[in-house]
């Protein structure tokens, strides 16, 4: 297990993922804003939430990178394509399980069952995050594949 590689490259790969998502958002392709969604768990101010959310996302990314590093260690190999495959699995999991489940635990995210008492301000992501724009599934999936490819490349190079 490459602990030093995990510590550094996990951070880099998460930054790549976040940068891809933010670029897509700024390019008008998706309204999915992971730092905002994660950060509004702590504060309602969007600007402050993004800062907090970026930190949370780095921590979460690091946790996932541990899983990637463990897989590479078990398989005895780290490569860009293996990382890409794991990224595809990770992206699919994020779209079908992780993002939809946020509704159940996020204090400021409405659910599709929200009623008049709801004071939540973030709309629910819906199936595959489609409420945040039609391109959201593709962007999210691609960004996670990018995360896996980056980790595979960097850990494989050591």
């Amino acid at each position: 297990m490459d602990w030093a590689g995990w510590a550094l490259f996990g951070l880099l790969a998460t930054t790549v993922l976040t940068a891809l998502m933010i670029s897509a958002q700024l390019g008008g392709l998706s309204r999915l804003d992971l730092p905002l969604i994660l950060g509004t768990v702590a504060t309602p101010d969007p600007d402050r939430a993004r800062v907090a959310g970026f930190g949370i996302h780095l921590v979460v990314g690091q946790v996932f990178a541990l899983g990637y590093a463990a897989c590479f260690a078990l398989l005895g190999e780290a490569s860009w394509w293996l990382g890409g495959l794991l990224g595809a699995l990770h992206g699919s999991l994020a779209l079908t399980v992780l993002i939809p489940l946020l509704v159940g635990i996020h204090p400021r995210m409405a659910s599709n069952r929200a009623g008049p008492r709801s004071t939540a301000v973030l709309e629910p992501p819906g199936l595959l995050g489609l409420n945040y724009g039609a391109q959201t599934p593709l962007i999210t999936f691609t960004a996670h594949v990018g995360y896996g490819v980056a980790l595979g490349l960097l850990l494989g190079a050591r």
Partner: protein
Amino acid sequence: MSPHGPRPTDRTWHDINSLGTPIEDYALLGDTRSAALVGPEGSIDWLCVPRFDGRPVFGRLVGGPAAGSFRLAPARPLGLASRRYRPESVTLETTWDTDAGPLTLTEGMVAEVSGDLLPSTMLVRRLTARDGPVEATITFDPRLGEQHQSPRVQYRDRDRVLVCTWPTTAIALKTNSAVRVQPGLPQTVTVSPDRPFTCVLAVADREPLTYVDHDAAWEALQRDELRWQAWCRDIDPTIPHRDMVTRSLLTLRLLTYSPSGAPVAAPTTSLPEVVGGIRNWDYRYAWPRDASIGIAAFLGVGKHEEARAFLAWLLSATRLDRPRLPVLLTLHGKHPAPERELKNWAGYADSLPVRLGNGAADQHQLDGYGWVLDAAWLLTQAGHRLYSETWRTMAGFADNVAARWRQPDAGIWEVRADTTHHVHSKLMAWLALDRALLLAGHHRASPGRMRRWTAARAELREEIASCGFDPERGTYTRSYGSPDVDAALLILPKLGFEPICSPRVSGTIDAIVHDLDAGPPLLYRYPPRHDGLPGIEGAFLPCSFWLVEALAKSRRVVEATSLFDDLIALASPVGLYAEEMDPLTHHHLGNFPQALTHAALVQAALALRDAGAR
């Protein structure tokens, strides 16, 4: 009599009554996620699932009998005795006389389902007899979607639960009677004073069905009723016609999609603006303009959470288009699918086509920016500091206005003809820049940006005064060089563009009242036949409420009060309004109920209150 000649409908109301229920005879049931329309004969003729813009499961309103309905009523009614919403709630109560005594139908949709194992769409209907056993009829005929698809039918719990399924949608109808409800076939049940008949309709879309016990459903509806009453309690008791203002606020809240905060313009599609005509549009979308007007209405009665929710929706929904402000969006902020016409849909009173989608989505409308920036300014005035992101968005809108105000646009009325220089749009562009400059006093903006806004605002003022004003008649006009007036200009007194009592403002109000009179208290929005479509549409109800507001703000309070009283008398039997009204018969026209009309009613009442009227 209208100065514009014959009545604006192509068909008499005798014909309509023979074809269907008059629009204003429907009442709204809702849960802030979807809504149903129920007629005075106990028939639910409209319900889309799982959301306002979903597929109709009961579509008889515009699809004819083949599109499905759900009727619950006495088997042999002698007549309708009363129909009302329970005070300060959205629970509807309809009582019919029968030869065995009165029979009352109490019904509603449950809004608060979070935290309990309840379906997100749940409709509860209870029949109660007072004097003795009364025979009632239940006709349950769900048909899903464009093709009026019949369900696959199964029974559970010793035939007490009817389950209707389609590939992704399922409905459970549970009753407390032994009667076996069969879709499409009328069944008779006997309702005794000691044993009400209760039906619970639960809908599941891409999720498991929930069977809800009738007592649990009834209790959930009653809990909802208490919540609505609590919500209404703090509405200012000094507002004129407080009961109607309360009904309007409840309607606005019912038409706000809680999961995203999007205000839907109306829960229906294709209720005609001309009966038998082609002016049939899909209003199950959210217009940023309407959201902004809603913000003003809710803020005016102290409902700050609702106002902030509208702004939050605006921010989220417009993110992909900034700095452009889309004309309309879906409930989750997407662009609507292209407008299309439904085949094999009968239309309301043969008014074809029935449309899905709305072609106005692709238009350029300058006025929306003014409404949105004004709403942000109102929130700031009410003590809410805008988040930095909100301010950046508003500043981006102002930049866009400063860059594009010289272009012609489609205008507030979304006329599907060539674009032109609408004076109302230019005024709203001026308002956008003015409010941006006011907001800049509370936020950071570069000196260069403020100079651009200030210069554009000054140019707009000059151009509007020189090109948009008819000095001979002393009125602002519909568009540059046009002899016509436009009822949208009634918002002039609240903009701050001119002193309230200036002759230009009063001249414009008077010219509108003269030229667009549809028979007091009604106004056309623009001169009839000036929109390139066949037929003459009805009077446009929000304009009449804007006239009340304009008169009240111009200190013509007696006129305003009298007009408001007359308009209140034109409400539907349960206090709702459509978008338009037939000037002669006072039947409602267009999609129903209409959020813009109800928001305008609230603002008119607030203006009267502020002017000292009682």
